[in-house]
């Protein structure tokens, strides 16, 4: 996976990164730029001196389970010896000659401070298996292989997951840690008319925020569906778009939408399943089935829809966070929804 992805990244680097490609960059690709070589390299690698015999290299590779080692003279890098060099020596029965006869002396190195992508580019260009890493003074500080990079990226992804858990933990304690007589959190989303490309984004963010705050998956899903239908209504029907306002309190979630027109002339009719005023091209995309408001009602513990034609519409949806508050939901299904 890493190699394929790295290949793609390299292509993008060669072509230059456009705004469009930036939008498609995955987390793994991002990490290739964020992580530095020194974060993922092996420090204090096994090194050898030029005069030791190939037999010693064989022993070292076998004991340390490595496939290559930098060759140094007083801390200065003079070459690299790899398992391929060892095989050449073995074929010739040359195990007693000094390794300098077989080492590669033109060593390609990478800088410790560079991002991991630089090492990946060098791997792709040179097809070597390992790269000595040097500091700003050219002194050897480590060695890096593709395996080191994979491990480094996996560790970083693990950190990302832990960070998400931490965010979730912090968010879920928000209401406990902050003391007030009444604590609420308000989220606002500005929705543009006919912006189908971003349709569903606000509701996705709402659902994720609620999960982070510790809402049950069922409650988050109901809020997500209600918010989605409300969001799509703003996109499909409003003249100038509108606002979704989500008020989160320890006991309930209040989702409201506000817009400034065109308004709904007959709310009873609008609530009828299958009734829709969506234009044909919008229906062809599968929107405007005339089910949106019904879906909101189904997910809500209480719902209120107020509209003045020519002025705008105000939708209020309340969902309780704990099942014990569910009596209200029962009541609602008997026709208790107040429609102003």
């Amino acid at each position, binding site marked *: 996976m890493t190699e394929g992805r790295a290949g793609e990244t390299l292509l993008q680097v060669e072509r230059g990164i456009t705004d469009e490609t930036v*939008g*498609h960059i*995955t987390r793994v690709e991002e990490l290739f730029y964020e992580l530095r070589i020194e974060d993922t390299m092996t420090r204090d690698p096994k090194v050898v001196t030029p005069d030791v015999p190939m037999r010693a290299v064989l022993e070292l590779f076998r004991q340390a389970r490595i496939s290559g080692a930098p060759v140094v003279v007083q801390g200065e890098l003079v070459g690299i010896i790899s398992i391929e060099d060892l095989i050449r020596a073995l074929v010739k029965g040359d195990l007693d000659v000094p390794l300098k006869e077989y080492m590669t002396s033109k060593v390609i190195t990478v800088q410790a401070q560079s991002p991991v992508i630089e090492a990946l580019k060098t791997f792709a260009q040179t097809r070597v298996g390992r790269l000595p890493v040097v500091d700003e003074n050219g002194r050897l500080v480590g060695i890096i292989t593709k395996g080191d990079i994979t491990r480094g990226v996996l560790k970083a992804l693990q950190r990302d997951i832990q960070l998400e858990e931490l965010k979730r933990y912090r968010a879920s304690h928000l209401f406990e840690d902050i003391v007030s007589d009444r604590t609420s959190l308000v989220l606002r989303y500005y929705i543009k008319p006919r912006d*189908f*490309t971003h*349709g*569903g*984004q606000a*509701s*996705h963010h709402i*659902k994720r925020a609620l999960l982070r705050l510790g809402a049950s998956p069922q409650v988050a*899903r109901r809020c*997500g*569906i209600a918010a*989605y*239908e409300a969001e*799509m209504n703003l996109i499909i029907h409003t003249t100038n778009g509108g606002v979704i306002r989500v008020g989160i309190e320890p006991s309930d979630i209040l989702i409201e939408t506000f817009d400034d027109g065109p308004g709904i002339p007959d709310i009873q009719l609008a609530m009828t399943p299958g009734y829709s005023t969506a234009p044909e091209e919008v229906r062809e*995309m*599968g*929107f405007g*089935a*005339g*089910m*949106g408001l*019904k*879906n909101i009602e*189904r997910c809500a513990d209480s719902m209120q829809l107020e509209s003045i034609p020519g002025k705008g519409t105000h939708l209020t949806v309340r969902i309780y966070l704990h099942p014990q508050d569910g009596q209200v939901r029962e009541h609602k299904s008997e026709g208790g929804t107040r429609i102003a």
Partner: protein
Amino acid sequence: MTLQEIVAELNLMCLTNPCDFSAIEVKSGYASDLLSCVMAGARHHGVWITLQSHSNVVAVAALLELSAVIITEGARPSQDAIDKANEERVNLFLTDKSTFWVVGKLWEMGVRDS
């Protein structure tokens, strides 16, 4: 039933980054091209069969936590929609067959509507 069995039996083309489909359980199925009907009718961990292929399909599938979406009649979604699906970890599949054919096959395999 696992997604792996369905993909193999129906010979579906995976549009998103493949993952371990044998670990994904498909509990039910739903077919409609009207998004609000899907919102109301599809169950989570289900499979949804549609010929809609724009990016809002992904938004709906993500919100409902569907196991997979099968897009029929070869209506290939845009790259944007596929990228979004990868981001949201929605499994998108494509087939040249009709919705009727896919639903019939799934029913034969034992997938039901709830």
